């Protein structure tokens, strides 16, 4: 195959971002005439392979190995590197998840192939895809240049593609094997656990009012909470607000918080660093209020206001209370 998409397991289902990577592969593959294979590995490889066989791809590789039952960077990097070596695709695609950040640079080093991480878009030049990533905390963007031909490893940022666009089909499943030496696994993982008890599952909220550093101080948070209450919205925030202890961590939206895609994401004083944006890019309507006209978040806003949220929000709350009554 020309493109190998590596799947990540989310409790026995294909991770949403792996689905997005498949959608991306189909789109890029279609434009550049590239065929697609999919690799399922880990404890739930058969289940993932089964799900992937409903997609319009050339074939599914199913890799089962006892050293891959629990995720370790040692095991996964070794396994994926071996599969890529033997299958020799031109491109290896991933969704840019925390797990990928953890082990794929090692694949890159083992294979001496470049890892183009966190890609947001692509263009086709000379029949080949050219990938672009963001730089300087999403303020600028750059097209990455490969020094020579494939294979190269690519991971896509959340919502670079939409899983809604996956074309279905029927693909066959083939078993593959790798050799992993017991001594090469030098990491012993324990069970994952959640740290904050309870809290709202923001990912199912329809309306979100989200607070950033621009709120300036803890005392001002109530202004946003009043607005949320008036609108019937949930409160979310960017990382700095949580780091300052102004809100408990479960409100955090972003790469290390929750990913949300509500009907309305009203961002107050959030500049739009990548870490936050990846958690809310998929929101249907994004309204941004920020003092800084250069805030990157305006780039993805449907509606933007360059202004002082401390002045605007209280009046907005009043107006909403008025029309609701």
């Amino acid at each position, binding site marked *: 195959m020309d493109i190998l998409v590596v799947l990540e397991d989310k409790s026995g289902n294909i991770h949403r971002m792996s689905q997005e990577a498949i959608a991306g592969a189909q789109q890029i593959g279609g434009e550049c005439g590239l065929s697609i294979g999919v690799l399922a590995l880990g404890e739930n490889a058969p289940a993932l392979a089964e799900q992937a066989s409903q997609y319009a791809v050339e074939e599914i590789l199913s890799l089962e190995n006892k050293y891959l039952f629990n995720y370790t*960077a*040692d095991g996964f*990097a070794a396994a994926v590197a071996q599969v890529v070596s033997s299958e020799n695709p031109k491109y290896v695609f991933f969704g840019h998840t*925390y797990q990928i950040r*953890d082990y794929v*640079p*090692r694949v*890159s080093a083992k294979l*001496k192939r*470049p*890892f*183009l991480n*966190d890609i947001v878009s692509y263009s086709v030049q000379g029949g080949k895809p050219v990938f672009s*990533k*963001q*730089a*300087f905390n*999403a*303020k*600028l*963007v*750059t*097209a*990455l*240049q490969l*020094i020579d031909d494939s294979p*190269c490893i690519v991971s896509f940022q959340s919502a670079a593609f939409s899983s809604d666009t996956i074309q279905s089909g029927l693909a066959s499943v083939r078993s593959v094997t790798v050799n992993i030496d017991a001594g090469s696994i*030098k*990491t*012993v*993982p*324990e*069970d*994952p*656990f*959640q740290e904050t008890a309870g809290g709202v599952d923001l990912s199912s909220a329809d*309306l979100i009012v989200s607070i950033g550093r621009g709120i300036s101080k803890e005392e001002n948070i109530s202004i946003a909470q009043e607005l949320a209450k008036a*609108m*019937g919205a949930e409160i979310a925030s960017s990382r700095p607000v949580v780091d300052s202890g102004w809100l408990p*961590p*479960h409100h955090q939206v972003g790469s*290390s*918080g*929750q990913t949300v895609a509500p009907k*309305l994401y009203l961002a107050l004083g959030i500049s739009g660093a990548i870490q936050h944006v990846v958690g809310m890019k998929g929101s249907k309507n994004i*309204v941004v209020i920020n003092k800084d006209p*250069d805030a*990157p978040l*305006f*780039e993805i806003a*449907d*509606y*933007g*206001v*360059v202004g002082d949220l401390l002045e605007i929000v209280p*009046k*907005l709350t009043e*107006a*909403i209370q008025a*029309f609701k009554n």
Partner: protein
Amino acid sequence: MNICVLVKQVPGSEAHFSVSADGLWIQETELPFEMNESDNYALEEALQIREQKGTGEVVIVSLGPDRCQKAIREALAKGADRAIHIKEDAPYNTDPYAIASALANTIKDEGFNLVLSGLQSDDLGFGQTGVILGELLGMTTATLVVGTEVLDGKIRVKRELEAGWFQWQTMDLPASLAIQSGLNTPRYPTLKGIMTAKKKEIKELSFADICAVDELQSFNGLSVQHAEKQTEMIAGTVDQIVARLVDILKNEIRIN
């Protein structure tokens, strides 16, 4: 416990930049520079681990032009013992594989038990260098580290997973860890720290001399992000803005 801390100097977080006239990099002349944020946490973690163990060196390794000596000195002032500055003038030779290879060549004979790096740099944000370095030197690796516990010959680390989940894992030493911001509280440099920093060794090497591999990727200039969306910017007085917002919420987005 000998620890290497990888430190990068990046444009100041309060700065805003424009692309240089030739489109290849950012306009650096009017910019302040500072130590990359997560590197500062990595440094603090290294200093705390060394304090717990009681012995060992904390060594700074930094790759960049002359100006990054300022970040190096700051690290030395906070308590690191010595530094290696790999001089590289061109700001945009930034293939993580080539950089990690150069770093690996530099430290391979030093016998470090731990290499700590910041999770990713605030300029290009590849987030790969520490992990590639670990792989090249046969170390175990972990990223998004938010807690460390040194054991005998091993280290137990707490990794951040998505959506509020975490996981501990025990890894053989030597290990290369990419540290997430916020896991500790970085200390202030003291006056004595600043004074003694001047006497600490900063070994200078040249990137061209120690990088034995070719770049795998580079990039093709920088540009301002193009808005993919049509953003309606609402301007006017506060009252006018509020009125338009209410209209949008009520009639266009239909929040009810």
